[in-house]
């Protein structure tokens, strides 16, 4: 698979047997599944599909996949995809994260890593080109993100300097790691990079923790692999730069302008656990972030012309010492407005804390808001909350609760399971149905883009039919070949690139894909064959689910109850999702994507896509309806 943007090798590390091998994939598999999310679906299905329901996402049988795509490192803005059987949805989530790690990995000669088994004690994997080692990590176990990076940078650089005496100064290696949240297997734990970057949705930090794997560290000294048409690629590279460098608003504020605007303008921002979606808190304007906390205006990952990130620091006051990025819109919303917090300082404080412990800002912000609403309603008391008075807007109180979650102490042990599982447990404990306050889809917190106002990019079925649940970067949409549809997004997550370098001029991406791989795809061709195949595998895995829970489309292809309550405030007050409309759109979506009236992929569609084994496995689900 040389000359198509691939190194042609995937590294396989079995942490139980400590066996390290390399595998090569056939061109036909790569042509169909590309890399990242698509390839993850294929590998997971091939290896675990026949016993999918029995596989414990947090058991040694699960796989942790870390996969680049052919465009990684070439198309501006490098990302890598983390996957496995998700401890949140029990399905497959393609969770991507930016940084230099993916480029280091490819330069070391690998397109990805398959990690199986589980280590007996904490380890990290170190890759220096062809040399791969499993190393003791007991000294970094328990450390937060900042400490982990500091220690590993020091350790690896001094080792390389000693080993290669005349080389000169070594740059830092690429590091993917987990924080204490992942070590303690919170289902909201993420795989982190560069302090603040997270492969968020899916809960793969917990999978990594369950394998006793603290970090993967890589230094690659080779070039990126050859591409199909280098001249064309270099021409397009310049074109892509030009387009994204002109996107001034996105560059200056990143998604950080959303904390105010998505609430005030779009009425689709979670406020106090989605009890509202509108606010006019000018204290939360992006101008405030810019003036009060941003010390670096443009921050980006390898090869990115957009550099939408910013570095934020609180230097004085009660939250002094908090350092994180922007925060981006999702964390402004989930660790800000959703908790009734409306100042940059408090928002940076909570975001930095969440990053340091390695939890997902979205899933954790969702469960914190959920708990606060239960406190507001008197369902959870101060006693239930280990003495915490969980009032809206009290950043210190939320920080205390985060600590309980990370340490799995008291109520924290329940909340660490994420909103859906916590709601099941608390309903049982209290004898009250609290699922109606859980704003999630298929075990995954809904991203900070509501559907009630109709002023955002979302539609009434965005989360209802998504194969990645509440993931706001992978939503169901008609037509399925439209740029906002998750079928098309599956391409971006497979190639693997950043969606923010796609929207300016999508066609450039598809041309670039052809220049690197030599393979022609359009959104239309993709949505009828290769992309659709990935979605069917993800859907099948989601429906099979298990072992602790399996989704029933009749019940769970649905919005959270909250979305049917009318918005109480703002210009869209009174608006809500409409059940009839949702049902109608759902039906239409099922048809377009090839699912039967029960939401199960149709045999004829699967057979046409060459997914005979998926079809057979789904007979188990079909039987549930007979």
């Amino acid at each position: 698979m040389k000359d198509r943007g691939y190194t042609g090798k995937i590294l396989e590390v079995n942490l139980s047997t400590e066996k390290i091998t390399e595998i090569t994939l056939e061109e036909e598999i790569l042509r169909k599944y590309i890399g990242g999310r698509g390839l993850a679906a294929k590998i997971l299905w091939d290896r675990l599909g026949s016993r999918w329901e029995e596989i414990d996402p947090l058991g040694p049988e699960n796989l942790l996949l870390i996969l680049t795509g052919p465009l990684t490192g070439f198309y501006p803005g490098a990302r890598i995809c983390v996957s496995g059987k998700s401890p949140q949805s029990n399905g497959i989530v393609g969770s991507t994260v930016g940084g230099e790690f993916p480029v280091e990995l490819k330069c070391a000669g690998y397109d990805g890593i398959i990690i199986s088994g589980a280590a007996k004690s904490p380890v990290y994997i170190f890759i220096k080109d062809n040399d791969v080692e499993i190393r003791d990590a007991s000294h970094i176990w328990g450390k937060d993100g900042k400490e982990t990076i500091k220690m590993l940078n020091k350790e690896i650089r001094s080792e390389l300097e000693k080993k290669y005496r005349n080389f000169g100064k070594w740059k830092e290696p690429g590091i993917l790691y987990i924080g204490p949240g992942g070590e303690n297997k919170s289902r909201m734990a993420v795989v982190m990079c560069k302090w603040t970057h997270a492969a968020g949705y899916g809960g793969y930090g917990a999978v990594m923790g369950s394998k006793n794997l603290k970090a993967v560290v890589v230094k690659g000294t080779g070039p990126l692999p050859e591409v199909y048409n280098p001249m064309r690629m270099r021409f397009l590279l310049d074109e892509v730069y030009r387009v994204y460098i002109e996107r001034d608003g996105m560059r200056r504020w990143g998604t950080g302008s959303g904390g105010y605007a998505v609430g005030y303008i779009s009425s689709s921002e979670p406020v106090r656990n989605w009890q509202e979606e509108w606010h006019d808190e000018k204290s939360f304007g992006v101008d405030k972030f810019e003036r009060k906390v941003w010390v670096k205006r443009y921050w980006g990952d390898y090869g990115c012309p957009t550099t939408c990130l910013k570095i934020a620091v609180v230097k004085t006051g009660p939250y002094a010492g908090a350092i994180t990025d922007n925060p981006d819109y999702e964390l402004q919303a989930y660790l800000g407005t959703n908790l009734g917090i409306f100042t940059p300082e408090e928002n940076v404080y909570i975001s930095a804390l969440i990053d340091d412990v390695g939890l997902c800002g979205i899933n954790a912000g969702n469960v914190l808001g959920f708990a606060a609403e239960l406190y507001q309603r008197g369902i959870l008391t101060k006693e239930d909350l280990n003495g915490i008075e969980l009032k809206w807007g009290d950043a210190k109180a939320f920080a205390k609760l985060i600590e309980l979650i990370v340490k799995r102490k008291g109520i924290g042990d329940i909340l660490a399971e994420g909103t859906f599982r916590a709601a099941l447990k608390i309903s049982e404990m209290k004898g009250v149905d609290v699922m109606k306050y859980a704003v999630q889809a298929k075990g995954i917190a809904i991203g900070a883009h509501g559907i009630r106002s109709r002023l955002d990019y979302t539609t009434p079925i965005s989360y209802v039919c998504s194969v990645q649940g509440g993931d706001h970067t992978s939503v169901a949409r008609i037509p399925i070949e439209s740029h906002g549809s998750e079928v098309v997004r599956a391409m971006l997550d497979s190639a693997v690139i950043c969606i923010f370098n796609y929207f300016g001029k999508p066609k450039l991406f598809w041309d670039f894909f052809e220049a690197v791989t030599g393979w022609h795809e359009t959104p239309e061709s993709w949505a009828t064959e290769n992309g659709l195949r990935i979605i069917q595998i993800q859907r099948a895995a989601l429906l099979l689910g298990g072992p602790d829970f399996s989704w029933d489309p009749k019940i769970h292809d649905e919005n959270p109850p909250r979305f049917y309550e009318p918005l109480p405030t703002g210009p869209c007050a009174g608006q809500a999702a409409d059940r009839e409309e949702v049902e109608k759109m759902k039906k239409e979506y099922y048809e377009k994507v090839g699912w039967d009236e029960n939401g199960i992929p149709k045999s004829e569609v699967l057979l046409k896509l060459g997914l005979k084994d998926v079809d057979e496995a789904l007979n188990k689900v079909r039987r549930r309806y007979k």
Partner: protein
Amino acid sequence: MAGRDGQIWIMRDFIKCSGCRLCEIACSLAHEGKIWPEASRIRIFMLVPGIEIPHLCTQCEDYPCVDACPVNALSVNKTTGAVIVDKEKCTACGLCIQACPGKIPHLHPSGKYILICDLCDGDPQCVKVCQMGKWNALWIVPRSTVEKQCKLYARTPEEITKELTINLYGKFGEELL
């Protein structure tokens, strides 16, 4: 060194560096014909996230690296003032690295010869792309206007990181080092 007239220097503002590494891509494409981070003559160090350091030759007025080379593999281009590496002569002994006050040169990943910025013969590609992207972390100034300060910029990544971390993160930066 006579004849500085008309020579350029790459001015650098570390705080403005976004860490996008487009300069590394441009450099390795220009010199190696491919994207190759470790073969780039300009390297972005990120020893602490958010603290990105463009590390490249400063063309010191006394060129200690050239003096230190035991095999005359290094020379100064009279027109540009850049240090030129003779790949054939270089034995990869590393003495130029030791002589550099910023330990800026590094070995090509092949291990065969040293890499030092050659100013792209007077048209540095790293500056071009940084300017195109409006980051302004790198830009061109006439060498004559900065002569006395150039060598001050030859510092190790560790030293620059330490100072910049405190600058950007205040006293909280100390724990990160």
